[in-house]
């Protein structure tokens, strides 16, 4: 039981990071129907900028939380600059182009950002400074660390803040109007270009925080880290219904849980010895608590994509999505 609970805690932590990355995908898609495949790289840039800042402040004697806070405050404007530049230079000129064109551009941007990061931060796996001393708390037999609590709290706060922004502010109204119909929104006096740029900027700021949290949690960062994380977050966005803000949050959390539980239990479920008659047929292989596992925990990263495929097959509009899948 405590193992199960621990997997839930692990899944929830990873899932809340996926959720705020997924928000970046879903907001951009909701407003201009573009899958911004370079979003994972923005997360990576956020992690890397924070890495450099933490390194620079390491000897300054500031408390670790303050260092992390300053690092995040530096990463956010850096990511905002990248996000804005990306929209202005790579996507806006192509807004009237066929839909495939900006998609290819997005992949190009992603490769460019990766290689820029390679030049600046080298190709090495960077050991993320462990400035926050880990404290373990017991929770009904499971262990939760202060870092995990912090990650979940920050992510929940950011999701709440974003929901407020989208549903309660003028900018949010403008964003939703632009998402529904750009031309009509423009006729109503909304500066569509500004709203779209704002969407990218908000997504990039979320990505910066996600990057810092992710790297602090796992303790490593590398210039390639954005691609797999981005793909998983994209799967989460599709799972929740791409273009739908609450959907991305739900999708991210669910994906985190599916991954943790999947990796934790796939070995048990694919252990042929656990099934009575197959076990007997295998005889010696299963004697004395032996196991015959078809697929083990090395398939952890596959779950995100199994989920993606299942959603696309059975519910293309995602869990909370209302739109029919003709947009992309």
């Amino acid at each position, binding site marked *: 039981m*405590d*193992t199960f609970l*621990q*997997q839930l805690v*692990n899944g929830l932590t*990873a899932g809340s990071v996926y959720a705020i990355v997924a928000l970046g995908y879903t907001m951009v898609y909701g407003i201009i129907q573009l*899958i911004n*495949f370079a979003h994972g790289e923005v997360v990576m840039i956020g992690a890397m900028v924070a890495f450099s800042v933490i390194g620079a402040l390491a000897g300054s004697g500031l408390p670790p939380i303050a260092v992390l806070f300053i690092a995040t405050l530096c990463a956010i404007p850096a990511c905002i600059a990248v996000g804005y530049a990306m929209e202005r230079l790579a996507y806006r000129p192509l807004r009237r182009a066929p*839909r*495939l064109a900006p*998609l*290819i551009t997005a*992949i*190009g941007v*992603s*490769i460019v950002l990766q*290689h820029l990061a*390679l030049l600046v931060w*080298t*190709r*090495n*796996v960077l*050991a993320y400074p*462990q400035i926050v001393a*880990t404290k*373990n708390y017991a929770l009904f037999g499971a*262990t939760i*660390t202060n*870092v995990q609590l912090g990650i979940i709290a920050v992510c929940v706060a950011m999701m709440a803040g974003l929901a407020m922004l989208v549903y309660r502010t003028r900018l949010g109204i403008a964003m939703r109007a632009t998402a529904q119909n750009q031309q009509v929104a423009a006729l109503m006096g909304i500066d569509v270009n500004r709203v779209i740029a704002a969407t990218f900027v908000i997504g990039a700021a979320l990505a910066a925080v996600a990057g810092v949290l992710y790297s602090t949690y*796992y*303790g*490593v960062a590398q210039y*390639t*880290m954005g691609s797999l994380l981005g793909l998983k977050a994209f799967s989460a966005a599709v799972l929740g219904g791409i273009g739908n803000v609450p959907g991305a949050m739900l999708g991210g959390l669910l994906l985190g849980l599916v*991954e*943790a*539980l*999947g*990796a*934790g239990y796939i*070995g048990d479920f694919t252990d042929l010895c656990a099934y009575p008659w197959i076990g007997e047929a295998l005889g010696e292989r299963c004697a004395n608590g032996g*196991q015959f*596992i078809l697929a*083990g*925990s*090395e398939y*952890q*990263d596959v779950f995100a994509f199994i989920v993606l495929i299942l959603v*696309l097959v059975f519910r*293309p509009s995602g869990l909370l999505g209302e739109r029919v*899948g003709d947009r*992309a």
Partner: protein
Amino acid sequence: MNNHKAAWTLAAAALALAGCGEEKPAPKAQAKAEAPAAPAPAPTIEIKIASVAPLTVKTPHLGKDNENGVRLALDEANASGIKIDGKDAKFVLVSEDDQGDPKVGTTVAQKLVDAKVNGIVGHLNSGVTIPASVIYNQAGIPMITGSATNPEVTERGFKVTFRTVGRDDQQGPAIASYLAANTKPKVVAIVDDATAYGAGIANEVEKTLKAANVKVLPREKGTDSTTDWKAILTKLRGRKPDAVFYGGMDQTGGPLLKQGRELGLKAVFAFGDGACTDEMSKLAGPAAEGLLCSQAGIPPQAADKKFLDAYKKKFNTDPILYSPFTYDGANLLIAAMKKANSADPAKYLPELQKISYQGATGKIEFDDKGDRKDAEMTIFTMKDGKITPLAIVKSGKTTAYDDFVKAAAPAAPATAAPAAPAPEAKKDEPKKEEPKK
């Protein structure tokens, strides 16, 4: 959503292309018989020696370390003015990036064969060395690996495949029996990264532990780029192992160790040579203290003092792991060429097979398979952020590290000299290597 799928295929293709794009300009093949009219510029012969290791992804720090070893050997050879076949030999380093990937490894191997290199030092990873060595074997070009420890590398009867390090069926039993004898675990969990190296050494450890009547939990596997080990570790925690062995590299082993401690796992962690570097203390932080690990050779700091000083001077850093072995690998190729008085692989190969060479890592002779005779294994522990040698295992016999250094002292004073003064300076810590700033 068809567009996305098409786009992803394109992206994959683009990435693959980008990966292949990093070509080093191949050195020009000089005409061997250059007009020997003028007496002053003696005729030169250009000898290409390749270094192959992952330089961009996975473990680039170890890849660079291996390459540095080769580079140093070639530079020294060039400076010493070696003559082969009456001509001034000019050794040229051809460095290639195999990305730690078996598929890229074979492509790179073919490229080296096509470029007619005279000898190869590499690859770093066993999983890459095994398929690549098939290509070198067909071309008849000698290959010496200074770091691939999987037994399979030399088990296929290839005449041109050599290694200057020990094998995992020596290393695995060494670390496993040390673990069994010193921590006395009842239950051990074994995790590997599903590569030829990781799974190979994990199998050897499992065999030895089972023979010592230690209960081994069913194997758990990650990949060579896993960063999230929490699911596996949580599962293991429920089964309460006394020790965890991981077969894999440091960049995945670091997060594994850190996350294990975060989950409150109290077991002793033991790692193979891929994760036996000082880098572990950075990757895992304070959690790294007390980990046990092994290397398939003597520790880099116990290598020849001349090598250590030259390395430090040239690269302004200390050797990380296997550069003394790639350095010896390159020197062995050069020594064999000198003896045969030819850089032609077919001509110097017999010399390489029967060579007896005093290298930076001690005396090197090869057996019939191309393995190093009487290779040493070292057991380390992480102490104050540095891996510190505990014991040396040679031909099944365990010697405390200090005794090994003492025993080596009269036989080869040059080798032992750098190791001897350090322990006296720090009495209670048998720390060997304090990088002089």
